[in-house]
């Protein structure tokens, strides 16, 4: 089934379509949430809240506003950030200092058989610092292009060129 049709059926409150979307995207969302909260126990709780929210607010998604995946990731990211700001989270004394996603690769033996783990590790390691930084800010922290431009003090055009190169390399490694 096409993604568009699946999303439409989900918006018409088809729970089977919703479950398929869950299967497709839950891992990505978990990864983004984990990248922010850095606590495995919180991830499941936040993910559950996010999916309930997504279900109850299915009307607010429109394909014209962006990718369905992007929408899900944005909601997940916001929920995770809210969690880091909550009382409970601060009490538990967790360190929510921003860490590059690349650290996660190094600290977890998580690169299972679904992906070419070694390839990705190699890729990540082979990325320039600038490229790592870009991916971190744009895909994990959800910065807008303008914010990225300000953060790394680089003109927008240059950022776009670098990013295109980075993603192009990534595609070669992971999809071929």
């Amino acid at each position, binding site marked *: 089934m096409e993604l568009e049709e699946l999303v439409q059926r989900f918006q018409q409150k088809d729970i089977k379509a919703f479950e398929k979307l*869950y299967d497709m995207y839950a891992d990505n969302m978990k990864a983004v949430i984990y990248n922010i909260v850095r606590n495995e126990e919180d991830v499941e709780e936040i993910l559950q809240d996010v999916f309930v929210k997504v279900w109850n607010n299915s009307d607010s998604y429109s394909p014209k506003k962006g990718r369905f995946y992007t929408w899900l990731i944005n909601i997940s990211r916001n929920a995770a950030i809210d969690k880091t700001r909550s009382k409970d989270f601060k009490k538990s004394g967790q360190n929510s200092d921003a860490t590059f996603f690349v650290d996660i690769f190094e600290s977890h033996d998580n690169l299972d058989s679904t992906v070419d783990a070694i390839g990705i590790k190699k890729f990540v390691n082979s990325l320039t610092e600038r490229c790592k930084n870009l991916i971190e800010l744009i895909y994990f922290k959800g910065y807008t292009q303008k914010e990225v431009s300000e953060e790394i003090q680089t003109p927008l055009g240059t950022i776009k060129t670098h990013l*295109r190169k980075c993603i192009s390399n990534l595609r070669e490694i992971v999809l071929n």
Partner: protein
Amino acid sequence: MELYVAGALSEKENQEVYDVMQQYPEVKAEVEEIEKAIRVLTKSMLPTTISSSFESIRRIISKDEGGKVVPLSKGRTNWAAYTGWAASVILAVGLFWMFNQNNELKSEVQSAEIKNAVLEKQIEETNYSLNKASELLSVLRDKNRTEVPLAGQTVDPEAYASVYIKDGENTVYIDALGLPDPPEGKVYQVWSLKLSPLTPTSIGLLEDFATDENKIFALTNVDGSEAFGITLEPAGGSPTPNLEQLYTLGAIQTP
């Protein structure tokens, strides 16, 4: 397109990319490839120890569906609508009620006015009768008055009447209580009589006989009366008395 997948574009730019994607399938394919690559990268970062299942989400959702969330939001919209309708119905009923009340009050005022008029008329009539009665009483009590009893005649031997004459005045009072009500279209006519030769002079009609309560009539007499007679005549009276319908007759007793 990389930024599009990241959600880093403005709403307007998103719309533009979307439009181009709809137009050119190769652009759409490119975007899907980028998304796929990012997803693979993202997914690869997930610690395998983190588990989750759709079941817990399904439970929450179906509980919400059957229980609170949906009916609540539904109920909220309906409340507004119901309240609006209820208010207008109440307003309509209220207006109708007030309209009715107003009409009722108007008709009450009208009937009160009518009653008032009737009462006023009754007071007037009562005052009139009272005046006549007092007048008669003063005549009766006056020592200088003459009473002329009129006896029943052949037509109705039971009938009787009295004429009171106040000395030195032209007004005579006829007490006609002893006369039956005249039939429709007829009226009693009072005659002053001179006996030799017999000359009847009409001194008036007993108008509205049936409705007059105390049956006392004041008439203006002519000079030189020697007797009085009352006859039944056609409405409006006659120039000469119809002696066949002579009800009462009596002569003044000379002292």
